[in-house]
């Protein structure tokens, strides 16, 4: 359990936290020196390649690897037969329980290929050309089966069945036959019928969002080596080296202590690197060949075989009285899970009405398996989808009632002491403050031109805490090293160094933040859920506080006074009983560490609770070209409650990045499948993410309502900003063209058709 040892006094002047120092990883990244997953190399290293199913759904009748193995230069071939056939078992490794059999089968298909691109075999060879030639020599015999990708088609009683063992959970009675619906969940409150009876205006719509990819620039990549004594090492790009270790150990039937994972620099993850694809295969190939194996996905492989987030259908019925009081909401969410159960429909359900105080609601979610890649987390998983639907409906409700969309949201806003739709009572939230910030911002009153529209939307994310470890070491010259177990996907090295520097009283450039391998630091849950600055930051601060306590003890020893006669202030020990004594700097104490107890070091492990939820409120202006239907985003303002911004520039970057991804989701991005279930746009040319020239300057407004559970008041910030943009853009488009658009992306052909039908 976490414990805050010493919290800075309210209003205490902070010297480092809240400033904008140069990021410690900046020079490496802009000069190309940063070592990403694909940059690592070892002597004698082999090249690994994967043979993938060309069918969206097929029974694997046989895999004949003999010709491939006979090819000169091929050192190893693996199939599902090289991995233990795991029992279906939920295992907690990171943020939530995952089914080990599903993870294993997703890495290497067993019995059935469940999507186009599903791995069926892997090869390690002395060159890429030989490995690719070997893939052609592997003969796989398939029985092609009917496939289903559309979520509602997959829910139909006569749909092709992906898993014979899957029976819908969460129904009142256990079903008597298997289904593609893995789970139904439901949240409800009050009397829905009475709520709608009291409504004087009702909006009822069906919204559709496509599967979209996280779009990280760096493809999955790793190097793995398994020594003859069974000791394995992995260097890979992921959001959690401990997650990689656990999953590799389980998938290969090894002990966790037999695998050491070193995190590479990560070129984007956004949730998509919270699971494994390549690492167990590379270890298996290395085990078989006796040589290190490097595997790097192509962009096409990233799209075809790694997790996008769900495509979904969301039905919303929402009613309000004439004064804007929302009286009832009935929401049905149907989310694709991909090949194995586990869509983010649970979080989508729990966040759907998290911004609203509604007396009567029912939220029903369906987790549906489909013949598409198993979904992976994507920034506030599930929340942007449900927010697109709810925020579009609320906007239409405001139009129907002739009310200002911000005023309608303020009238129904959750506040401290209210119960969230998902259960708990809110404390220390800053939602209303974000609404006030956009209401009072000049953007909201700025005039609009022809074919232009302005949209408003809000969003919520829980933010989480969880297990983290951090160590602080003081060097002999008085500088310090902060060691954590969380890959830096959004600036966490800077914030860790700043919190340590603030606590120690050091300039931040005297603190070097390091992300350590699994053997060098205690366990930390992966970087995700907007948890790292909160939870790992708490561990860093507590470790630094332990260091301060130790420094005071050592100063007392040097001065030969009682420890209560020593105060630590701004990086120096002060002697209280004899004020004219020159202070002892951290460097002076460090130089004498051998005579005061040895190295100065502290490590703290904790399981942080009390993460503060985050809220955002956005305004978007667009212009729609009446001839082409092309949408230009003209102006975007995003207010967010961030608790306390440790490094404001990084927080602003998180807000801008989340908005950019949300705009891409709204306007451009979608998985397009052909009639055989093959992805037709598996490349950045045809799957278009927004680039800088597509976007205006996104103006972030940081609202600071501190989280009292964190030593500096921090809340998670990385996920909230992707929640509102889908609806903010769609609401702006609806107001620009006078037609409500309910299906993403808002591509020019769709808008042209909508405008033609006006």
């Amino acid at each position: 359990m976490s414990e805050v040892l010493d919290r800075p006094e309210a209003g205490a002047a902070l010297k480092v936290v809240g400033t904008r120092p140069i990021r410690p990883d900046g020079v490496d990244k802009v000069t190309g020196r940063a070592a990403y997953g694909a940059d690592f190399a070892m002597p004698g290293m082999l090249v690994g390649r994967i043979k993938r199913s060309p069918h969206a759904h097929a029974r694997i009748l046989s895999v004949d690897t003999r010709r491939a193995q006979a090819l000169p230069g091929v050192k190893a071939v693996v199939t599902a037969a090289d991995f233990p056939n795991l029992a279906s078992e939920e295992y907690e490794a990171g943020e939530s329980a995952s089914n080990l059999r599903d993870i294993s089968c997703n890495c290497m298909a067993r019995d059935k290929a469940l999507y186009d691109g599903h791995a069926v075999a892997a090869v390690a060879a002395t060159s890429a050309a030989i490995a690719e030639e070997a893939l052609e020599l592997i003969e796989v015999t398939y029985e092609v089966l009917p496939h289903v990708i559309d979520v509602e088609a997959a829910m139909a009683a006569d749909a092709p069945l992906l898993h014979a063992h899957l029976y819908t959970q969460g129904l009142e009675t256990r079903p008597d036959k298997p289904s593609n619906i893995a789970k139904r969940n439901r949240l409800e409150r009050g009397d829905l019928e009475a709520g709608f009876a009291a409504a004087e205006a009702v909006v009822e719509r069906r919204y559709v969002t496509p599967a979209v990819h996280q779009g990280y620039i760096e493809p999955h990549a790793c190097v793995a080596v398994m020594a003859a004594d069974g000791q394995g090492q992995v260097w890979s790009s992921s959001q959690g080296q401990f997650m990689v270790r656990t999953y590799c150990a389980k998938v290969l039937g090894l002990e966790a202590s037999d695998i050491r994972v070193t995190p590479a620099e990560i070129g984007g993850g956004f949730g998509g690197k919270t699971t494994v694809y390549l690492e167990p295969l590379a270890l298996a190939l290395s085990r078989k060949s006796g040589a290190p194996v490097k595997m790097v996905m192509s962009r096409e492989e990233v799209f075809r075989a790694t997790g996008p987030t769900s495509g979904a259908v969301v039905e919303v019925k929402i009613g309000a009285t004439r004064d804007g009081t929302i009286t009832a909401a009935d929401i049905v969410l149907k989310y694709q899970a991909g090949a194995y159960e586990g869509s983010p429909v649970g979080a989508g359900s729990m966040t759907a009405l998290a911004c609203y105080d509604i007396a009567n609601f029912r939220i029903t979610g369906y987790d549906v398996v489909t013949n598409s890649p198993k979904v992976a987390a994507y920034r506030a998983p599930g929340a942007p989808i449900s927010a697109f639907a709810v925020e579009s409906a609320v906007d239409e409700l405001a139009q129907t009632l002739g009310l200002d969309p911000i005023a309608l949201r303020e009238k129904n806003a959750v506040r401290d002491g209210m119960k969230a739709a998902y259960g708990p009572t809110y404390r220390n939230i800053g939602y209303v403050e974000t609404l006030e910030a956009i209401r009072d911002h000049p953007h909201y009153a700025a005039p609009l031109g022809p074919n232009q529209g302005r949209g408003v939307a809000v969003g919520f994310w829980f933010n989480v805490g969880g297990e983290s470890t951090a160590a602080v070491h003081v060097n002999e010259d008085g500088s310090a090293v902060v060691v954590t177990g969380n890959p830096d996907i959004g600036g966490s090295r800077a914030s860790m160094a700043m919190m340590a520097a603030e606590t120690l009283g050091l300039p931040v450039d005297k603190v070097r933040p390091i992300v350590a391998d699994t053997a060098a630091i205690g366990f930390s849950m992966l970087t995700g859920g907007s948890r790292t600055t909160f939870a790992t930051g708490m561990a860093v601060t507590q470790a630094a506080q332990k260091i301060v306590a130790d420094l005071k003890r050592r100063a007392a020893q040097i001065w030969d006074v009682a420890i209560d006669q020593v105060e630590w202030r701004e990086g120096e020990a002060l002697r209280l009983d004899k004020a004219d004594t020159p202070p002892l700097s951290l460097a002076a104490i460090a130089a004498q560490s051998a005579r005061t107890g040895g190295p100065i070091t502290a490590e703290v492990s904790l399981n942080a609770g009390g993460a503060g939820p985050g809220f955002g409120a956005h305004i978007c202006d667009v212009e729609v070209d009446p001839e082409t239907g092309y949408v230009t985003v003209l102006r975007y303002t995003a207010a967010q409650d961030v608790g306390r911004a440790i490094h404001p520039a990084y927080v602003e970057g998180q807000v801008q990045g989340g908005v950019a991804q949300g705009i891409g989701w709204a306007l451009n991005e979608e998985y397009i499948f052909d009639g055989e279930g093959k992805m037709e746009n598996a490349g950045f040319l045809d799957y278009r993410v927004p680039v800088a020239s597509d976007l205006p300057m996104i103006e972030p407004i940081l609202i600071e309502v501190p989280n009292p559970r964190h030593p500096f008041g921090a809340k998670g910030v990385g996920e909230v900003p992707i929640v509102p943009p889908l609806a903010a853009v769609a609401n702006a488009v609806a107001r620009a063209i006078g037609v409500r658009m309910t299906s993403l992306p808002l591509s020019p052909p769709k808008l042209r058709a909508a405008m033609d039908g006006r």
Partner: protein
Amino acid sequence: MPHVLVADSNFRAVVGGVSELDIDADNVRRLIEAIDRRFPGSGAYIDKRMAIAVDGEIHQDAGAIPLTPASEVCLIPRIGGG
């Protein structure tokens, strides 16, 4: 005694369909044990799948959190993230 809210329908099925419970316990671990005694198997379900909010603060591992008769304990599905 502490008041327990069950917001999630899947867990509600594990505890006999109830949405609210009053359980006499002075910390979360003992509260979970008491729920498990009343609904066998529910404790393991909570350990694996649920997060616990005590008076509005969400914990992944809340066992040692003390409870008072006025405490509100909300059992919600465990939350991940991207």
